[in-house]
């Protein structure tokens, strides 16, 4: 079972205490955006084989949203951080670079 660290409760909690919220750091597009932007925001996903950023909610705990950086191939968790940011904090980028040399933030979508 997946276990993640809730940055608010400062506890490792089991998956059954959490609710998955899908890919994190999506840039929101709304009225006024182009069809392509709106479509991509709503439907296309990175779905990477490797480093993935995803939203989780500690639903059976503090109820707050956080983001987990995780490897979808090894299930290794690089770290978790509060969801109130538009891109991953530097410490987590550094940690991922150390473990996955050559990795870059949003290489594909960017």
């Amino acid at each position: 079972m997946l276990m993640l660290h809730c940055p608010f409760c400062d506890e490792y909690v089991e998956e059954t205490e959490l609710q998955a919220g899908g890919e994190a750091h999506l840039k929101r597009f709304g009225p006024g955006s182009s069809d392509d932007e709106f479509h991509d925001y709503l439907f296309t996903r990175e779905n990477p084989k490797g480093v993935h950023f995803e939203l989780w909610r500690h639903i059976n705990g503090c109820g707050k949203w956080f983001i987990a950086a995780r490897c979808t191939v090894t299930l290794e968790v690089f770290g978790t951080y509060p969801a109130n940011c538009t891109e991953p904090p530097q410490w987590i980028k550094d940690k991922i670079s150390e473990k996955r040399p050559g990795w870059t933030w949003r290489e594909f979508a960017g």
Partner: protein
Amino acid sequence: MKRYSAFAVAREALRYHMGWERAWTSPAPKRHYDVIIVGAGGHGLATAYYLGKNYGITNVAILEKGWLGGGNTGRNTTIIRSNYLQDPSAAIYEKARSLYEDMSQDLNYNVMFSPRGVIMLAQTEHEVRGYKRTAHANALQGVPTEWIDPKRVKELVPIINLEGPRYPVLGGLWQERGGTARHDAVAWGYARACSAMGMDIIQQCEVTGVRSENGRVVGVNTTKGSIDCDKLGMVVAGNCSHLSDMAGFRLPVESVALQALVSEPIKPCMDVVVMANTVHGYMSQSDKGEMVIGGGTDAFNNYTQRGSFHHIEETVRALNETFPMVSRLKMLRQWGGIVDVTGDRSPLISKTPVNNIFVNAGWGTGGFKAIPGSGWAMAELMATGHSPLAEEFSMNRFKEGKFIDESVAAGVAH
């Protein structure tokens, strides 16, 4: 290719079975093919088969990173049905189901299609209404299905407990010509037929890059060297985003683990397939006597072909209520597959932003039943550029808001 027949069995019995030939060849890749199909699962192999059979295109390679049928095709619980709600789904799934009826004869390979009947249990008022609606839709689509009451459910499934404590059985949607087939045999049968047409099935050959020039695909890089092609079909299920990434576009797909398990073999006790979607469990009995049980998907992206244990717990708990005898069964094996789930729970059979690359993916938790129909449509699309069966399944439907919303019929695993 030597044909399989009762006569061949007798002939081989008399000579120590030394005369059987290999079912398919294992050639080294050529430099160039007219068509390359990536992924030797059911959908990839069926695509190749109908390219040859329906369009005479046989200079085809099917590239497989592992062994053929080792993906979801060899991991699923083999339920075949076509009782979907929306017209495009009913059309392609019923085409597939009808091709299953004589697939063994067509391929000269016993795929053990067993149209034993499929019941989808209604255990809430919502489901009652939903399935009655589906039965009406199916009547209009020409797909024979029927709403049945609890008494009839009990007649068909004597081991069922109608008075479940949480979710009593209120009736069911019954498709008499639904059933199961042997999953490996479907892959093997298509592979043998493709090989007999002169196609190359190349196993342990992973595609690691897609080469395109001026918006057209020219070939792929693989662990067995680079291979050129005029057209490329990506049919890799849970790995489709990874492949599309190589070609430089993204798909409306996420990959998650779906699990199944089988019990120890027991005497025949249930001769239909039963699906209980509210409680996330479905069950059939294999010819070996094992109870084949499917569960739910994980909620997070995953490529490991392993799922979370608590889903197994949920599934078994639910089945215990509906089939009390299950509580005395030992479970033998449990496994997972990586399924490709789209935004509207319907598949993609589509052209892509790169000319001459076609994608067939998004079958998610329910694509085994679709294999022949999907291959039929994908072959037509790749050969002629247009397929009526595939039309509504274009990846552009998300942009146009033309969803094929089957989340009621297919949101649960089967």
